[in-house]
C-alpha cells in the first residue's frame, strides 16, 4: 500500500478510571484505512475498556480522539455509530424477534417516515437488500425474523448493520469493533467469519479482541499489546507469533512476600484427600479429575472459557454445572440432585466470582451476612435468632479478618469490595469448612485487602482446610498454589507442582493456556 498514510482514527494519551481506579492510561492507538488491528492483553489489562471507549460507551478521563481528521468525542454508542464506528457485541446486540431490516434501522425509523408518521418499510427493505447483496450476503432475507438465523449468520447481520448504518450516515469507511467474536462459535464458523472480515477489509477497518492469541496472528495486520493498563508493544505483520505476544502480555515481577510463599504448607501423599473429583464432564468440559489434600491449595488456571469455572460449579452444585463424573468429599460422594445443599452439609464453602449477586446480600447487615450459612449457631430458643449471639459472631470475624466496618449492624453495601469479600469468607468460616472453593477471590479487591486475604488463606491451610483456587490472575495462581492445573478447551492440559522454591513462571504456564 502507499507508504505515508494518515490514520483514520488517532488516539493520544487516553486514560480511563472508574471511581479513582485507573483502568488504563497513556494509551496511544492508530487505525488506518483498510486495516485489521488487534488489541491483546490479559484479563484486566484494559483492552475491553479501550474498545468501549472507541465505541462511545465509556468516555475517556483524559486524552484525545480524532476520527477522519475531526475531534471525536462520542457521548454514547449511537454517536459513535453516526460517526462511523460500530461494535459487534460478544452477546449480540440484535433483537431476535424483529426482522433483519428492522434490526438494521432500529432507532433510526424516523428517517423513513412518510406523511402521517407511517414508516416506509418498503424503502428500508430495499436498502437492506442492496447492502446485503453488496456484502455477498445475498442469502440473508431482510424480511426474515433475525432469531431464525444461526449464530454465524446473525454475526454477519451485525457486521452488515455496521455497513448499512455507515452508508446511511454517509461515512465512507466505517470502523468495526469486534469484541471476542469467536468466544461462542466453533472452528468452522470462525473460518467463515475471518474470511468475511478479510473480504470486507477493502471497505472498512476492523479492531479485534479475542482470547485466542492464534487468531491475532491469522487475521491481524497490526497488533497492540496491553499490560496493566498500558500499551506495552506494537507489532507489525510477520513480526508477531503467539509466543512473542504472550511474552509481551505477561512478565510482571512476583513478590514472594505478598503471596506468603514462605508459609506455604508442604503437602505429601500421606495427607488425607478431602476432595476427589473424577471424570467431570458436560458442556464443553471433558474428563477433569484431581484430588485435593488437607492443607493444600490446588490452583486451576486457564483462559476465560476454558472450563475451569464449570469445574468449580460442579463441585459446589451451582446450577447449571457439568453433570457427568463424581465429586467425593471426605469419602462421601455428592449426589447429582440437590448437590448444593449436600456440598454445604459436607463442609464445602464456595466463594463465587460475582460478589454482589452471588456472595453477599448488600441490603443485609454484616452480621446477617456472616450468619447466613450458620443460623443454627446464633439461635437461643430453638429457631429463634438471638441478636446478641449474632452480633457476637460477627464481631469475632470482623476482628479475625480485619473487616473495616462501623460494626456488625452496618449494611454490607457500604463496605469496600475487599471488605465485602472478607464477609463472604466470614460467612463460610462461621459455618466451619473443610474444603473451600474460590472463584477469583480477589477480583475487584484492592491491594491491601488482597494481601490480607492471602494471609487468611495460608492460616486456613495451616489449620488443615483444603483450598481449590480458580483464578484468572496468573501471579496469584502461581504464588498461592501448591500445585497448578492448566485447562484449555475443557481439558486439563498440564499439571505442575509449585513448591515455594521452584515456582513455575508465567511464561511457562501461558504456553499451555493458548
Amino acid at each position, binding site marked *: 500500500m502507499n507508504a505515508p498514510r494518515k490514520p483514520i482514527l488517532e488516539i493520544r494519551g487516553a486514560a480511563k478510571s472508574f471511581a479513582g481506579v485507573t483502568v488504563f492510561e497513556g494509551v496511544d492507538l492508530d487505525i488506518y484505512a483498510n486495516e485489521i488491528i488487534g488489541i491483546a492483553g490479559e484479563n484486566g489489562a484494559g483492552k475491553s475498556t479501550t474498545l468501549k471507549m472507541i465505541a462511545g460507551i465509556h468516555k475517556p478521563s483524559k486524552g484525545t480522539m480524532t476520527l477522519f481528521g475531526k475531534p471525536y468525542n462520542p457521548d454514547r454508542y449511537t454517536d459513535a455509530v453516526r460517526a462511523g464506528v460500530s461494535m459487534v457485541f460478544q452477546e449480540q446486540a440484535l433483537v431476535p424477534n424483529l426482522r433483519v431490516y428492522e434490526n438494521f434501522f432500529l432507532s433510526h425509523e424516523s428517517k423513513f417516515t412518510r406523511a402521517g408518521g407511517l414508516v416506509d418499510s418498503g424503502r428500508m427493505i430495499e436498502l437492506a437488500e442492496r447492502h446485503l447483496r453488496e456484502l455477498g450476503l445475498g442469502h440473508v432475507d431482510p424480511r426474515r425474523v433475525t432469531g431464525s438465523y444461526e449464530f454465524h449468520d446473525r454475526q454477519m447481520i451485525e457486521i452488515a448493520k455496521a455497513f448499512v448504518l455507515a452508508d446511511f450516515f454517509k461515512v465512507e469507511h466505517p470502523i468495526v469493533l469486534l469484541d471476542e467474536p469467536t468466544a461462542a462459535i466453533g472452528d468452522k464458523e470462525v473460518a467463515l467469519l475471518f474470511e468475511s472480515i478479510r473480504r470486507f477489509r477493502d471497505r472498512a477497518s476492523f479492531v479485534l479482541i479475542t482470547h485466542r492469541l492464534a487468531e491475532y496472528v491469522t487475521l491481524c495486520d497490526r497488533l497492540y499489546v496491553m499490560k496493566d493498563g498500558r500499551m506495552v508493544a506494537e507489532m507489525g505483520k510477520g513480526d508477531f507469533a503467539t509466543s512473542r505476544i504472550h511474552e509481551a502480555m505477561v512478565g510482571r515481577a512476583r513478590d514472594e512476600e505478598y503471596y506468603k510463599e514462605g508459609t506455604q504448607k508442604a503437602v505429601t501423599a500421606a495427607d488425607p484427600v478431602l476432595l476427589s473429583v473424577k471424570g467431570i464432564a458436560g458442556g464443553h468440559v471433558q474428563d477433569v479429575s484431581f484430588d485435593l489434600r488437607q492443607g493444600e491449595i490446588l490452583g486451576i488456571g486457564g483462559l476465560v472459557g476454558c472450563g475451569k469455572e464449570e469445574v468449580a460449579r460442579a463441585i459446589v452444585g*451451582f446450577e447449571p454445572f457439568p453433570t457427568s463424573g463424581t465429586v467425593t468429599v471426605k469419602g462421601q460422594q455428592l449426589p447429582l440432585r440437590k448437590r448444593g445443599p449436600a456440598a*454445604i452439609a459436607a463442609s464445602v464453602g464456595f466463594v463465587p466470582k460475582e460478589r454482589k449477586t452471588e456472595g453477599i446480600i448488600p*441490603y*443485609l447487615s454484616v452480621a446477617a451476612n456472616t450468619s*447466613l*450459612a450458620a443460623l443454627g449457631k446464633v439461635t437461643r430458643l430453638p429457631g429463634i*435468632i*438471638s441478636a446478641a449471639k449474632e452480633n457476637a459472631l460477627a464481631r469475632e470475624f470482623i476482628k479475625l479478618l480485619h473487616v473495616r466496618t462501623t460494626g456488625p449492624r452496618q*449494611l454490607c*453495601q457500604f463496605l469496600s469490595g475487599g471488605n465485602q469479600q472478607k464477609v463472604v469468607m466470614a460467612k463460610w468460616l462461621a459455618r466451619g469448612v473443610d474444603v473451600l472453593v474460590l472463584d477469583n477471590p480477589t477480583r475487584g479487591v484492592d491491594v491491601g485487602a488482597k494481601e490480607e486475604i492471602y494471609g487468611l488463606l495460608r492460616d486456613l491451610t495451616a489449620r488443615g482446610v483444603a483450598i481449590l483456587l480458580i483464578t484468572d490472575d496468573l501471579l496469584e495462581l502461581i504464588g498461592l498454589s501448591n500445585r497448578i492445573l492448566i485447562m484449555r478447551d475443557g481439558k486439563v492440559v498440564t499439571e505442575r507442582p509449585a513448591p515455594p522454591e521452584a515456582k513455575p513462571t508465567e511464561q511457562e504456564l501461558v504456553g499451555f493456556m493458548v
Partner: protein
Amino acid sequence: MSFGRFAPLLVLVVLGLVFATLNPVFATPDNARNILYLASILLVASCGATFVILMGSIDLSVGAIATVSGVVAALLVPKLGAGALVVASLVGLAVGIVNGLLYVYLRIPSILVTLGTATSLTGVILFLSDGGSIPIRDTGYVALTQMEPVPFVPMIVVYAIIIYAICVLIGDRTRFGRMTLAIGGDEQTTKLVGVPVDFVKIQAFALSGALCGLCGALLASRLGTATGSMGDFLMLETITAVVVGGTAITGGVGGVARTLLGVLVVAMLSNGMNIIALHPYLQTIIKGCVILVAVIAMNRTLSAREAT
C-alpha cells in the same frame, strides 16, 4: 435510623391533625373505634403480605382469599361456632399453598399466579354465596370481634396485635423470616448458602394465605354478614400499607414491624376521607396516588443510600 424510617409516623400525625381540624367528629372515641376496626382487619392481612413482598413477590389474591374464607366461615358458623375461624384459616392456607406451588414449580411470576387464583376464587365465591350475602345470626361469633374488654377497644384489636407481635418475631428472629429477607435481597446468594429457596417461597405464600383466611373470618364477624365483595378493598390496601410502612415493593428491604405504621396511615386516610365527606371517586384517586408517592419515596431513599 434516618428520618425516612419515621416518615410514616409524621404522615400519620399530620393526617390526624388535618382530619380533626376539618371535622371534629374525626377525633371522637366512636370514630377511633371505627379506625381500630379497619386497621385491625388490614393489619392481619398485611402481616402476611409483608413476607411475600419482602421476597420480591406479590400476592394479588389477598382480597379474594379473605372473601372466600369469610363466606365459608359465615356458612359454617351455625355448625361450628368459633371453630369457623379455624376452617377459614385452613381454606386460606390451602389457597396460599396452591399459589406457592404454582409460583415455584411452574415458574410463573407471582403476580400472574395470584391474579389467576384470585379470578377463579371470585367464581367460587359466587357459587358459595349464590351472589348474595350470608347473614351471621350467632351473636357469640359476632361478639368474638366486637366485644370490648376496654371501652372503645374491640377484641379484634387484641387479636391483631397478637398476630402482629408473632409475625414481627417470625420476621426478625427466625430462620424463615431471615430467609425471606435474604431472598428479596439476592436470590442467587441465598441459594448458594444452601437455603431451600423454593420451600421458603411456598411457606411465605402459605402464611400469607392463612392470615388472609383468618382476616376474612374476622371481617365476617365484624360485619355480622359475609358478602361476595367484602374483601375487595384488601388487595390494594394491604399493598399500600406494606409499601407506605417502608418495605420495598422490589423486596429485600423492610419488615413486618414497619407495616404497622403503614396500616394505621391507610386506615386513618380511608376513614378520614369518609368523615370529611370527600367525593368517593376522589377518594379512590387519592388512594392510588398514595401508592405512587410511597413507591417514589422508597426508591429515593434506596438510591440515596446507594449513592453514599
